[in-house]
């Protein structure tokens, strides 16, 4: 197991994702002799996990069962222990494409936060790229560095615990792409430019408030960035439902029921088909959905 390479079987030391339902997954560090408690009962790592195939069904002690999945950045994003607001897959996917990330890309990121985006970047730039990620908060920087190790991607990433607005990314002229998710991104625009290759590259800033966007765009333009483009993307989930709709009863319809030669009284029970209903497949949106995560501002650094 690694976050950048699939394995078929679960091994001691792996991180596996226990799938309970689409909105309930938990990451588990697989350890010989360890146990994990779920709402369906206990999972014994030695017998239930190690040596099993990823994707297997595991029957828990209470008789319920779960699936054990190979970790991916996306499963990690929905199951990771939150230490900050995190970026979710919809924004991450957009960022990845719009920053033109691919194997070999060198990327700078700040802040690292809970590492939700970092994992997705690492997946995309492996095996030959590198991520330089800067996190101001020491505890978080240490925690995420440990996770990179556990997820076997530490060879692809350098974590720096410093203030990006003051100290920059710690590298110069190497990055193909820079990502900013900090309260005052404009203060890091110069550092972003310095970190990037002289031949150019792409930058993205994520900010919840429009004032941050306005200021960042100004600074980007001042620093000679081009193709500055702000966008917003929202995910819509469609829950699939079978619904039943009642049919109205308009009462006996003489025009429909009596052929011209049938003059006797029509039998009342059949004439009014009392409130039957029809069934159909449809989708409904969740009652409430995320209405905003943040604005994504992209720009191109030209050759300098």
């Amino acid at each position, binding site marked *: 197991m690694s976050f950048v390479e699939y394995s078929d079987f679960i091994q001691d030391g792996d991180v596996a994702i226990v799938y309970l339902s689409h909105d309930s997954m938990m990451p588990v560090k697989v350890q010989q002799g360890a146990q994990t408690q779920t709402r369906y009962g206990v999972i014994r790592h030695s017998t239930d996990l190690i040596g099993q195939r990823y994707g297997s069904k595991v029957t828990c002690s209470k008789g319920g069962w779960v699936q054990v999945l190979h970790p991916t950045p996306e499963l990690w994003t929905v199951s990771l222990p939150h*230490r*900050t607001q995190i970026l979710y897959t919809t924004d991450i996917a957009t960022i990845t494409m719009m920053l033109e990330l691919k194997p070999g890309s060198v990327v700078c990121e700040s*802040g690292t936060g809970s590492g939700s985006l970092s994992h997705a970047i690492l997946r995309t730039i492996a095996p030959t790229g590198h991520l330089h990620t800067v*996190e*101001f*908060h020491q*505890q*978080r920087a240490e925690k995420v560095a440990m996770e990179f190790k556990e997820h076997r991607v530490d060879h692809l990433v350098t974590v720096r615990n410093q203030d990006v607005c003051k100290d920059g990314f710690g590298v110069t002229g190497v990055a193909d792409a820079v990502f900013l998710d*900090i*309260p*005052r991104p404009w203060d890091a625009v110069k550092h972003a430019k310095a970190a990037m290759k002289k031949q150019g590259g792409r930058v993205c800033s994520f900010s*919840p*408030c*429009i*004032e941050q966007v306005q200021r960042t765009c100004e600074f980007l333009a001042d620093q000679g960035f081009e193709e500055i483009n702000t966008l917003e993307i929202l995910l*819509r989930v469609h829950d699939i439902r079978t*619904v039943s*709709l*009642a*049919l*109205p*009863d*308009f*009462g*006996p*319809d*003489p*025009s429909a029921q009596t052929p011209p030669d049938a003059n006797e009284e029509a039998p009342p029970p059949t004439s*009014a088909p009392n*409130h039957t*209903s*029809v069934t*159909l*497949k*449809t989708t*409904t*949106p*969740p*009652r*409430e*959905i*995320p*209405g*905003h*995560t*943040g*604005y994504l501002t992209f720009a191109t650094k030209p050759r300098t």
Partner: protein
Amino acid sequence: MADNGDEDSQYKIKEGDYVVLKRGDIYKAMQIQPRKKVIFEKQWFFLDNAVDHLYSTTFEIMSGGTLQPKKPKDTASSNDAKEAGTDNRNIVDDGKSQKLTRDDIETFKEQGLKDQEIIQQLIENSTTFRDKTEYAQAKYIKKKKKKYENTVTILKPSCRILAMMYHGREPGKICHLRYDTLAQMLTLANIHAGSKVLVFDTCAGLVLGAVMERMGGYGSVIQMYPGGGPVRAGVESFGFPAHFHDMLHEFPICHVNPLLAGTLDTTAKDPNADEKQSNKATEEEQNQPKAEQQGSPEERSMETNAGDDAGQEQEKKEKEKRKEAKAQEKKVKLEEKRKKLAAAAALLESRNADGLVIASRFHPCPVLMGLLKFLSPSRPFVVYSQYKEPLIECYTKLREHGGTVNLRLTDTWLRHYQVLPNRTHPVLLMSGGGGYLLSGTTVAMDRPKPAGSQRVEEPAPKRLKLTDTEG
């Protein structure tokens, strides 16, 4: 309202009034009744003290559940977050950031501390508050406020407020009809004073009430209702003046076909038919929750009082008496009902209604096809459905059938914004969907042709290319 009248009586809360309680974004419709215990947002209180105060007054809930008008606040509360950290990177998540315990807070409450004061205490005792981003601070305050606030504002009901209330509290009761979708319906159906409008509403009567508000007591509204009797809870909450109810008619849809066929007897000359009908009516009444039984507030509060007074002992004696009285009452009511039916039938028979509004849990297609017949040509109609598929079916059926133009299947996307200095952004949660509308305009049908030939004539060749886009 055109007059600049200065007398405030119409702006004063009176006993028996239908009002809406409000705290933050939470609304609840209510009638002002003496000594009636009200539960709102997990707090109980009495509304008696609110009487004779002005609408839109905010009250504090005092011990014993009495209300006391709140002093006008000094400044906007949107500036609660002060001294915000620029980000939250210094916060250590050790679970110890709040020094106050649950018990401390309970003690504050017992000491009678006001909500604002408790929140202030919480802020002052939070070691991390000042390090949080404004963003996180605002969230924190909101959460705490919700927990410890104890004020309530009393509003005069309106379509806007009730539509938002239903959507927030009980969307299931109104088929998830969002307030802005209701707004579209009223406009697309060109609802206005003086017209004759058909309404088919199983959304608690909210749509019916909204139509009535927009007609201001002028014109006529015919509520077409399915078996079980007309639903009116939502209409009551509007607290319309009595004369508004004069324009409201009702007609059971199970009589639609007989009416169209000319076989509906509303003269009560056939005792059998009448009996059958009356039985049905009684059943309906019995099947309904109390709140939906009566039209006017006066009647209803009387009944409630009667019920409260009745003891448990004298029952048997008076049972006989009441039975007789009831039979008589029933007779009167039936006659009333018959008259009402006859009146509604007369309105429908001319088949010249000016608008049709449908919002129900029924399949909209048969409902629409059944009721469209009652409209004049060149009149708008609008059908709501929580789901898109049934409206696709309506569209297809209408295109086959002819007699309508300007068909459009739409929905709306609605998002609210937080506008604060340096913290402006869309609200983080939004409604997932407000339902779908099919709207259109009736036109004169071609002269009745032998069945089958009609469809052929419908789209003229040169317009064929528009068939699908047309909508």
